[in-house]
């Protein structure tokens, strides 16, 4: 098994799991999750082997793993030219592969417990709705229910289907990460778009879930259309979509100098801009961010998958991959940096006013992605990749942790039987650190990593590097914006932790919360491990005290992806102080404010503008959605379809009918039937009637007739032959 073959095989187990579950094992829940988790394990194993091999290669950027591409589409230009596709493992895809494999495996394992495997089937559970609990007649640990039996969480009715879909999702991500050209990257991109639709709308009987799925799909589609335009334009100008060929010196130079004719941008600039719009959609940047918070309608592992491990990371990954092209045009870079920084701050302000535990994390994701995009916009290549990887780990951790919290809260809801209590509202929680200790500690680690707690969390190292790059290269506006956003990040994170875990339980349901099974807590622990330690592979050299102890492996390794190795920024104390201040300050401030807040009414930051996300959903609805509906209904449906098209069709009926009747009455009946049909019969009848007079039955007349004819023939013969 060569490394090249192994790389090709990495995406295979999850898609095989998808087909097997869909076609064969849908009814058998245990077999389905075994196939799925087994597939994730196989892909993880393959990825680790490839990663270790990649580590061993000198100058991986110049000699990437992957082998020869294969001929795929025959092109018509001349005989034997093909569009080639292949796999590529260079430093960027190696580190991406690492975190994708780990987070995917953790999420798969987590899903087994999240969907309550091993629990009985629900009382009135319905495929399409979240499970609602099963009544069991046993000695439970609570006798609070009046009748002596109590309700336990029930297994998800569509259990196998979930694993099939996340299998397909994992396949899409692996394809995207391992491809060596833009086309297969786009294929993986679109597969994940489909799966996000399928999974956000997993509980399809809920109208809010259906709407959220459509919203996600259409919003990302807008981005995808522009991305496809960019790919097409790139192909028409460069003649290739393979990364190594695009990033060749002459190609880049050509693209940078041809004017595109639009807005004064060069070809490279326009392509970069179009591709970036795809990322705006996929990674939920402003203005296409509206789908991501609503995507919380899906089950929590889906949120972790989409918003941490895979889909949104794919958007950033694509920009990182195309960095040599995008960085050619300063206008495009400015746009990228602006959107990234703006989104980071914008989303952070909204997160501060959210009460749903998952919504806070959603806006937090948008904000952190803004950080990465802004880093790319200012040219901080390595910092962006670093933050991408660390963010994947701690965001996945936070989402899975929140899922654990919600599970615990639902346990309490089933106990008390009060279904009006929202298990996701943070103001219904409190004091959960005692009831769910593992969840608490891992969530704390994740939250600190998100906030950038110094030294011991990975988020500190990556975020600090972005700020250092911004400061060091003189992008002051970006620096300040990101710093404020980082402060808000720490603030709302601590708000979240305080309201959820610290203090006392604010509701009965929170009192009856329970820790979740090992299939859910083990992934939390493993991800927490990475959230702590991963930062230490990227310690800058000139860091006080710690720098130089461990070489900055990450910078060396990932920096080798680019043709020109980026230089590490010069160390300055100011960005370091800034990040320490914003991190610690935000955390402290958040704890101070919220340790005494017990309900939403007391929360002074519940400003309506923030709570309603700056009314963007309403604006989009008014400006885009309602006119589209009006157009579809009135113009196309009522006018075009019913009046015009159906009108034309409705003419055919009467016209054909009249034509048929005319033919029948004016031609068929008189001519064919009467004239020819009856006419010939009548003529024959008349002739027969006349002729039969000959047959009198009197032989003498017969003889006379014969003689007449005989004489006639004789005379004729005589006169014509003999005379």
């Amino acid at each position, binding site marked *: 098994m060569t490394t090249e073959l192994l790389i090709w095989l990495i995406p295979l187990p999850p898609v095989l799991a998808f087909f097997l579950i869909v076609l064969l094992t849908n009814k058998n829940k245990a077999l389905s999750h075994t196939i799925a988790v087994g597939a994730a394990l196989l892909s993880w194993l393959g990825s680790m082997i490839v990663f270790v091999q990649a580590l061993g290669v000198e100058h991986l950027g110049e000699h990437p793993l992957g082998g020869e591409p294969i001929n795929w589409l025959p092109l018509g230009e001349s005989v034997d030219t093909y569009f080639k596709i292949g796999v590529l493992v260079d430093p960027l895809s190696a580190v991406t592969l690492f975190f994708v494999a780990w987070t995917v495996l953790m999420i798969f394992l987590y899903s087994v417990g999240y969907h309550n495997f091993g629990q009985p089937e629900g009382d009135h559970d319905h495929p399409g709705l979240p499970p609602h609990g099963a009544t069991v007649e046993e000695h439970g640990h609570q006798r609070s229910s009046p009748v002596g039996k109590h309700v336990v969480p029930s297994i998800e009715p569509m259990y196998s289907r979930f694993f099939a879909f996340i299998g397909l999702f994992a396949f899409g991500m692996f394809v995207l990460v391992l491809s060596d050209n833009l086309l297969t990257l786009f294929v993986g991109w679109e597969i994940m778009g489909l799966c996000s639709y399928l999974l956000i709308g997993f509980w399809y009987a809920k109208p809010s879930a259906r709407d959220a799925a459509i919203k996600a799909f259409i919003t990302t589609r807008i981005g995808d259309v522009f991305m496809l335009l960019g790919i097409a334009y790139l192909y028409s100008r460069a003649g290739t979509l393979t990364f190594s060929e695009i990033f060749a010196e002459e190609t880049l130079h050509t693209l940078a100098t041809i004017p595109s004719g639009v807005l004064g941008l060069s070809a490279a600039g326009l392509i970069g801009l179009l591709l970036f719009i795809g990322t705006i959609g996929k990674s939920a940047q402003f203005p296409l961010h509206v789908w991501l918070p609503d995507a919380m309608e899906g089950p929590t592992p889906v949120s972790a998958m989409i918003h941490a491990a895979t889909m949104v990371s794919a958007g950033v990954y694509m920009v990182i991959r195309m960095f040599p092209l995008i960085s050619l045009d300063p206008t495009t870079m400015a746009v990228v940096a602006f959107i990234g920084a703006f989104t980071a701050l914008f989303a952070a302000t909204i997160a501060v006013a959210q009460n749903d535990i998952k919504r806070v994390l959603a806006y937090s994701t948008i904000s952190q992605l803004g950080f990465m995009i802004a880093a790319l916009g200012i040219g901080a290549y390595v910092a962006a990749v670093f933050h991408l990887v660390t963010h994947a780990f701690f965001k996945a951790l936070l989402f899975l942790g929140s899922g654990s919290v919600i599970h615990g809260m639902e346990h309490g809801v089933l106990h008390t039987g009060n279904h009006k209590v929202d298990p996701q509202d943070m103001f219904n929680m409190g004091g959960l650190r005692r009831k769910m200790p593992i969840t608490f500690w891992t969530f704390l680690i994740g939250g600190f990593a998100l906030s950038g707690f110094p030294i011991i969390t990975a988020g500190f190292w990556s975020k600090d590097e972005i700020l250092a790059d911004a400061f060091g290269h003189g992008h002051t506006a970006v620096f300040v914006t990101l710093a404020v956003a980082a402060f808000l990040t720490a603030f709302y994170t601590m708000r979240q932790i305080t309201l959820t875990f610290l203090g006392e339980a604010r509701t009965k349901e929170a009192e009856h919360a329970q820790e979740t099974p090992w299939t859910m807590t083990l992934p939390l622990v493993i991800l927490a491990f990475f959230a702590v330690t991963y930062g230490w592979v990227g310690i800058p050299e000139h860091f006080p005290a710690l720098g130089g102890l461990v070489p900055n492996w990450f910078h060396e390794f990932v920096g080798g992806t680019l043709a020109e190795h980026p230089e590490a920024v010069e160390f300055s104390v100011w960005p370091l102080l800034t990040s320490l201040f914003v991190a610690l300050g935000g955390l402290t401030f958040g704890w101070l404010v919220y340790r005494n807040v017990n309900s939403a009414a007391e929360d002074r930051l519940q400003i309506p503008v923030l709570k309603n996300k700056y009314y963007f959903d309403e604006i989009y609805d008014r400006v885009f959605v309602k006119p589209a509906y009006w157009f579809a209904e009135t113009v196309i449906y009522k006018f075009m379809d019913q009046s015009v098209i159906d009108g034309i069709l409705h003419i055919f009926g009467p016209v054909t009918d009249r034509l048929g009747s005319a033919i029948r009455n004016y031609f068929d009946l008189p001519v064919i039937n009467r004239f020819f049909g009856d006419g010939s019969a009548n003529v024959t009848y008349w002739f027969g009637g006349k002729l039969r*007079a000959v*047959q*009198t*039955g*009197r*032989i*003498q007349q017969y*003889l*006379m007739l014969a*003689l007449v004819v005989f004489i006639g023939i004789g005379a004729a013969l005589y006169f014509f032959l003999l005379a």
Partner: protein
Amino acid sequence: MVPLSWYLIFAAALFSIGLFGVLSRRNAVAILLGIELMLNSVNINLAAFWRYGDVLQMTGQVFAIIVFAVAAAEVAVGLALVISVYRRRNTVVADEINMMKW
């Protein structure tokens, strides 16, 4: 020294008279009488040709003998038929035996 033509014309005239009888007589037996005349005229023809051709060839006479036989047979059967019809339909008028009309 009777020329052949006399015999032939004689036979032709007898034939025509017989034909007239066949065509015009009402009684079926009378029709058969006419047929006899016609057959006899044919025999005269045959005999004349024998005599006025090669006398050594007996073909003419043989033919005439055969005609005798045939005529006898035909008269027998014909009269039997007429008698049978008379028994059935009680008439010998040829015009009344017309069941084969349309």
